[in-house]
């Protein structure tokens, strides 16, 4: 049974006792929300670790951040870390969760030196049998990035594959 909105518990409330929650509990569950600052040193690390050679002396010339910051900012600034998400789902990270899909849209570039607000929600958590992985859970959620004037800068829809040993 899907709970009515008025009966829905918040992320923080569910976090207090995440054992035995049904998959429906997570439908439309809002992330706590938070902020993320785009700093130039992390931008440098992202570029370097993905094979883009940037001279450290040129760091101050960059205005736009690497667009993959949409990924890092939403996952670091949603108010719940990756571990927090797994804890809420009562999921063991040692089972090897994987990114299945990631659909991104950008209304504007992400800027270095800017602080962004992040909001979003879990769309669904479903179970299925995979030929390749056996029993899996599929976590579908969306997170969006807003600037200080509350304008949406970008949004990302994640689908994570969570292999499980037993339901």
């Amino acid at each position, binding site marked *: 049974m899907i709970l009515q909105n008025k009966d829905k518990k918040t992320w923080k409330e569910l976090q207090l006792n995440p054992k035995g929650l049904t998959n429906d509990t997570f439908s439309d569950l809002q992330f706590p929300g938070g902020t993320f600052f785009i700093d130039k040193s992390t931008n440098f690390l992202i570029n370097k670790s993905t*094979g883009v050679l940037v001279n450290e002396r040129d760091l101050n010339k960059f205005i736009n951040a690497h667009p993959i910051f949409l*990924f890092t900012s939403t996952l670091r600034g949603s108010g719940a870390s990756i571990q927090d998400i797994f804890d809420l789902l009562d999921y063991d990270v040692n089972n*090897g969760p994987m*990114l299945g899909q*990631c659909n*991104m*849209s*950008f209304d504007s570039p992400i800027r270095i030196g800017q602080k962004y607000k992040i909001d979003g929600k879990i769309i669904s958590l479903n179970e299925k049998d995979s030929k390749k992985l056996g029993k899996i859970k599929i976590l579908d959620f969306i997170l969006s990035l807003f600037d200080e004037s509350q304008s949406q800068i970008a949004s990302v829809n994640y689908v994570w594959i969570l*292999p499980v040993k037993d339901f």
Partner: protein
Amino acid sequence: MYSEGSSLKSWNFLVNQESMNVWAEILDDPNPIHLDINSARLLGLGEGTINQGPANIAYIMNMIEKNFPGSQIIKMNNKMTSAILEGDQVTVSGQIIKIQEKDNKSIISCSINLKTDENKVAVISEVDVLVL
């Protein structure tokens, strides 16, 4: 300058553990498959640590920037089809599918793949790029 059906310049990268360590920290990602070869092996994922998904997507973004310098990605749909392991030499390649002109700007739709040196497709992307 750009035309529908034309191939994009490819982009290569050798995936290494040092970069995966950086990504684990940047993402605050506790998943041991990125850091511990035994963890990946026990889960049957292969004989190497598994590269983080966002790093794979970032390679595709780098290829876009190489082909369309100063452009802006406006939409990017990524499907992860296979794992990239530490030590894999990856190649990003693709082609222009469609070009729409509007107000002296072009929206270029591309179909892009990230493959390993064994020709295993790891990411399939559809990308719309705004070129001024």
